[in-house]
């Protein structure tokens, strides 16, 4: 290192896809040759409304500058007008467990990961019997974060107790719900955490091989993950009880339904990603017919902390039946879109007010949708619902993957409903009739209403069709598809009626 480098000021800038899209890429380009700075490319804190955000060290921790342009460099180097990171309310109000490293570390620096408590969970797991690991998970009451919210320990126990010559661990990185991005952030920002969670699972169920099924839409995530796997391999981490535990990244090809576990396994094996009926459950008969744990990235990423800090500690967060924290992803017309990790139990209104910061300039609230394109719509009068699995189930809604999208007064609800049905019609795998045919008919009816030639009978038909799809579809795509449409009609009936032919 020459003198010049030693004098350089260390600045931290996120290398996350969204931070880059917000301007971090052009900052890095503009500053790459400046000898007076040394750019450290970190993960993102998830306060995307502030990105690009540039930080530097100070005696009291990191100090940040927001929405930075290349011209801000002198100001940053002078150290003036920076905001101490811990005093940013959007971050200070969160409880970061799974996302604790975000914004702090370089994603591929294994040493940093370890220095911040990484690999402790795996270490614990290696000293426990499979039964004890599963006990610890049971104590945490962790439920799968992907959508079905099934108790994780239960699934692991089934796989552990099923006799087989080979078992697999599969991370579902096919985060297909629009409006969600926490998996992408983990893959790009803290990949060792995912690998650690997968290794713990492998150790608990006795698996010999792991796969990460990553959607085609996340090229940066797949590349980072491959690098992380190579680094972990070099550090001799990818082994269990003296046996190698290879992990491979496999790419999807743009099909939404491949996020459903049975379809995912078909696609992983290289065929058409079509859903199959359960049982048998993948924990008994999964990839190539062998016991397989399929969990989503967020679930695996939560596990290391549960093992290192204990299941009881994790269960002390959140509510009785929704323990721990949830990663919520704010998007749409809020003033402060970004990633929020909080214990379960806050109301939707609190989340929108405290973190969303209200509406984007010029926008008035109309509705919010939680849980992706199959999630129910909530009007302003329903915002007091607590963020937890049971309250959502009772309201006929899903928390899904935690995506929260806010729509403003300019949203045309008829068009939005058509948009959802068209999505289902596009993505239906075709295995069952209610979804394959129902979604196409549903889209046609909505197109009719949109064109002004629909009748009251069409609305009734849409209701019937929706009820049939709900009860008779084989998987969540068809089963959930009516919810956004029917809640749009329920909460904004005038908009639909005014478009009908009289």
């Amino acid at each position: 290192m020459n003198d010049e480098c030693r004098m350089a000021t260390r600045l931290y800038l996120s290398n996350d896809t969204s931070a880059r899209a917000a301007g971090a890429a052009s900052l890095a380009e503009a500053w790459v040759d400046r000898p007076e700075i040394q750019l450290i490319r970190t993960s993102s804190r998830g306060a995307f409304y502030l990105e690009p955000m540039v930080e530097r060290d100070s005696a009291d921790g990191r100090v940040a500058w927001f929405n930075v342009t290349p011209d801000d460099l002198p100001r940053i180097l002078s150290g003036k007008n920076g905001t101490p990171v811990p005093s940013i309310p959007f971050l200070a109000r969160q409880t970061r467990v799974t996302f604790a490293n975000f914004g702090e570390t370089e994603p591929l620096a294994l040493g940093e990961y370890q220095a911040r408590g990484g690999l402790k969970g795996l270490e614990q797991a290696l000293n426990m019997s499979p039964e004890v690991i599963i006990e610890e998970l049971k104590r945490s009451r962790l439920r799968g974060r992907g959508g079905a919210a099934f108790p994780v320990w239960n699934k692991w126990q089934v796989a552990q107790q099923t006799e087989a010559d080979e078992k697999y661990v599969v991370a579902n990185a096919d985060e297909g719900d629009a409006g969600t991005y926490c998996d992408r952030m983990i893959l790009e920002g803290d990949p060792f955490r995912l690998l650690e969670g997968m290794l713990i699972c492998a150790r608990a169920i006795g698996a010999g091989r792991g796969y990460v099924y990553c959607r085609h839409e996340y090229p940066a995530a797949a590349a980072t993950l491959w690098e992380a796997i190579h680094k972990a391999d070099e550090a001799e981490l990818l082994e269990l009880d003296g046996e190698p535990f290879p992990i491979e990244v496999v790419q999807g090809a743009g099909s939404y339904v491949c996020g459903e576990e049975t379809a995912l396994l078909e696609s992983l094996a290289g065929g058409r990603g079509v859903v199959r009926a359960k049982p048998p459950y993948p924990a008994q008969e999964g990839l190539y017919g062998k016991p397989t744990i399929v969990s989503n990235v967020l679930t695996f990423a939560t596990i290391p902390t549960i093992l290192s800090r204990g299941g009881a500690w994790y269960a002390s967060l959140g509510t009785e039946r929704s323990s721990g924290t949830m990663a919520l992803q704010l998007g749409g017309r809020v003033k402060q879109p970004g990633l929020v990790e909080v214990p379960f139990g806050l109301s939707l209104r609190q989340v929108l007010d405290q973190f969303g910061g209200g509406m984007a300039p010029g926008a008035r609230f109309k509705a919010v949708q939680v849980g992706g394109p199959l999630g129910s719509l909530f009007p302003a009068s329903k915002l007091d619902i607590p963020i937890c699995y049971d309250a959502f189930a009772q309201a006929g809604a899903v928390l899904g993957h935690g995506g929260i999208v806010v729509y403003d007064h300019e949203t045309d609800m008829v068009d939005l409903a058509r948009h959802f049905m068209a999505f289902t019609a596009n993505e239906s795998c075709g295995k069952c009739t209610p979804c394959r045919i129902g979604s196409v008919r549903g889209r046609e009816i909505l197109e009719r209403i949109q064109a002004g030639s629909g009748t009251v009978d069409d609305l009734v038909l849409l209701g019937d069709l929706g009820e049939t799809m709900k009860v008779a579809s084989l998987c969540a795509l068809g089963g959930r598809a009516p919810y956004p449409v029917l809640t749009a009609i329920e909460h904004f009936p005038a908009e639909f009626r005014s478009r009908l032919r009289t």
Partner: protein
Amino acid sequence: MTVPNILKALLSLQEREGAVTPAAIGGIAHQLGTTTAQVAGVLSYYPDLHCASPGRHVIRLCMGESCYANGCTRLLRSLQDRLRVDVGETTGGGKFTLGTMSCAGNCAVSPTVIIDRDLWGRVLPSQLGALLERYK
């Protein structure tokens, strides 16, 4: 593994050649020891696999919920008008192919437009002209 991974073979072929032409199906089937019907079935199932070579630049507009709330339908209309093509089509000179996608995971910085390998966020219709200009 004994099971032939058709998807993997098709994706890597497409990566090399830009598309999976119908003529290539037989070769892949032979290579993997499976039938052309199996290969064609996988090819037709996945939206990201295609038979026709795309234009020199591929534009994909995210139509996911956050992008929808932030005006992607206006962006799409504007792109269609500018390029005079519909979704799935390639412009006359073979320069741009227009496509949509359901979410790029960039929802907090939406609406999102992806051109080739570049991802652009917070895109306004008024910026589209300058954006397209960058691609020769």
